[in-house]
């Protein structure tokens, strides 16, 4: 059992939907993003996705691209991101942390070394956008072996023929990307998402969380009501871009979390 499994077991027992939030590590600097990260659980965040900046984020829209750029320009490295997690863990040993990003910085560090360091820092799961099931031997299987969840994206192009392959080595939860597109694009309608979530749930016992394009408490509620939870990233990162005070960003996050939890 990882912190992720515990978290979803708890939510299920309470009959609650999950609220997952994404922030970029080191955006615009470590101090600010760590302060924001530390405030997320109290704002109602159940699972934290911590973005690892990469120079070439091929699945991200302009907002998250710029966040990564700001972080890198501020000197963010994979080591500093892991240090942030370790620092967070000093005060919170329950909120699951999923590191999300692209493969090359991990590959460059060395998969085994990365997994050992991430486990030691207190990371619970990984989402690596450019590792489809066809490349499971790279990181997914070693991560599962190291006791870390490897969370996979399922998308509208993942048809029934392909779904079992996508679910095969997935653990923790399934992240359903509600649209074909990049982060920050328009949201899908809950009525379109519902049958897709049902289709995935028929094939797995894992919780199915839906993301991409959710910006408001209303949409968070609508989407969470047809799934096991909702993810918000771009809308939060946008406030960091606008240099809003951390307290204001956390108030916005609380609104989203309340929306999802009211579903």
């Amino acid at each position: 059992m990882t912190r992720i499994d515990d978290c979803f077991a708890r939510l299920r027992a309470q009959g609650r939907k999950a609220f997952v939030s994404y922030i970029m590590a080191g955006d615009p600097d470590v101090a600010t993003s760590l302060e924001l990260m530390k405030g997320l659980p109290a704002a109602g965040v159940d699972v934290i996705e911590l973005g690892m900046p990469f120079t070439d984020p091929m699945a991200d829209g302009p907002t998250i691209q710029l966040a990564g750029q700001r972080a890198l320009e501020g000197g963010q490295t994979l080591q500093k991101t892991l240090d942030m997690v370790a620092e967070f863990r000093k005060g919170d040993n329950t909120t699951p942390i999923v590191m999300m990003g692209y493969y090359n910085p991990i590959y460059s560090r060395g998969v085994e070394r990365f997994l050992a360091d991430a486990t030691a820092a207190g990371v619970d799961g990984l989402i690596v956008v450019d590792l489809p099931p066809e490349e499971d031997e790279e990181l997914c299987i070693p991560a599962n072996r190291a006791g870390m969840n490897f969370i996979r994206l399922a998308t509208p192009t993942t048809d029934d023929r392909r779904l079992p392959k996508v679910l095969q080595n997935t653990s923790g939860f399934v992240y359903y990307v509600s649209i074909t597109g990049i982060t920050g694009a328009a949201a899908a309608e809950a009525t379109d998402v519902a049958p897709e979530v049902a289709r995935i749930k028929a094939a797995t016992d894992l919780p199915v969380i839906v993301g991409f394009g959710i910006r408001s408490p209303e949409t968070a509620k609508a989407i969470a009501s047809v799934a096991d939870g909702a993810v918000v990233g771009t809308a939060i990162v946008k406030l960091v871009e606008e240099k809003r005070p951390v307290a204001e960003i956390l108030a916005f996050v609380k609104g989203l979390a309340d929306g999802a939890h009211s579903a």
Partner: protein
Amino acid sequence: MADDLFNSFMNGPDERGRFGDFGGRFVSETLMPLILDLEAEYEKAKTDDTFWAEMDWLWKHYVGRPSPLYFAERLTDHLGGAKIYMKRDELNHTGAHKINNVLGQIILARRMGKTRIIAETGAGQHGVATATVCAKFGLKCIVYMGAHDVERQAPNVFRMRLLGAEVVPVTSGRGTLKDAMNDALRDWVTNVRDTFYCIGTVAGPHPYPAMVRDFQSIIGKEVRWQLAEQEGEGRLPDTVIAAIGGGSNAMGLFFPFLDDPSVRIIGVEAGGKGVDEKMEHCASLTGGRPGVLHGNRTYLLQDDDGQILEGFSISAGLDYPGIGPEHAWLHETGRAEYVAITDKEALGAFQLSCALEGIIPALEPSHALAHVMKIAPELPRDHIIVMNMCGRGDKDIFAVAKHLGFDIRT
């Protein structure tokens, strides 16, 4: 190198799209079903005579193939050593080798019922070729081009627009080829149902590196029979040389000779201001290390933390921090050698080709020619070098004028 490796170099990639450890399919889940469809369609086409009949007809009547294999006599005399042939792919319609591959991909796109074509471009040659073939077949065409390249390759931007393509300047990153490829991938992930991504080099997720190589291999296949025609039955080149951005013109020339042990193979990367710690170059094999970008594992210019570095070259077509995975494998197995040529050396070769052969080369093949100039004088007169003159220099005259201190703006 072990003899038993020969007869096997032409077998790659394996079913996972790997050349040794390189290549693969490192893409998001949204794209995965699309590249599997493409692979299936390409596998069908490969053994379909009607597909190749259509290609052959278009290559002959639309592109002007076969391109000549030309004995560069004055250059040979000037350098005083090896006998130098140029494979004249700069005479192709649209002025470079890029159209060889575009035709293949667009015919596939039509077979797959795709109506919207996207492409990335650096120098603009692949963009022009794609816009051209889309105009011919009445397909919608969108070309992503780094904002920096839009500026330095203005004539090609206008050409694409004349041909009906939409050119999208890309401002993310430093606004060069790698950033254009990122935005093309973002477009593809968004418009999966009707869109075909026409990649311009032997990079990207499997099956692109193999497919683009197969389409470009017409270059080396022609060289085989053309050289035999001019030098006698069975005569193979002793050395083949080509410039490398992503590596498609080079793979096209090299591939048919991979299993001929007597043929020395040399790829020429862009050395920019010099391959040193300042990293102001695009020599991924000479100055990079393995990593994963744009769907494949290959040699990349990157920092210690796995962040990708921007390349630097006088030639927009070589300004890419990666290289096709098959080259990475040929490099590691030792079957091919890779060297770097600086901007300055390339400019020298550019001028020499103009002066001695009456051929204005593109800056990309000028890099290959510069290496020919280095090695030819030391080689015997019966040593035959074939270099790939893969593009003409019309697009580059403004940039070259600037470097040589002329102002030719009107």
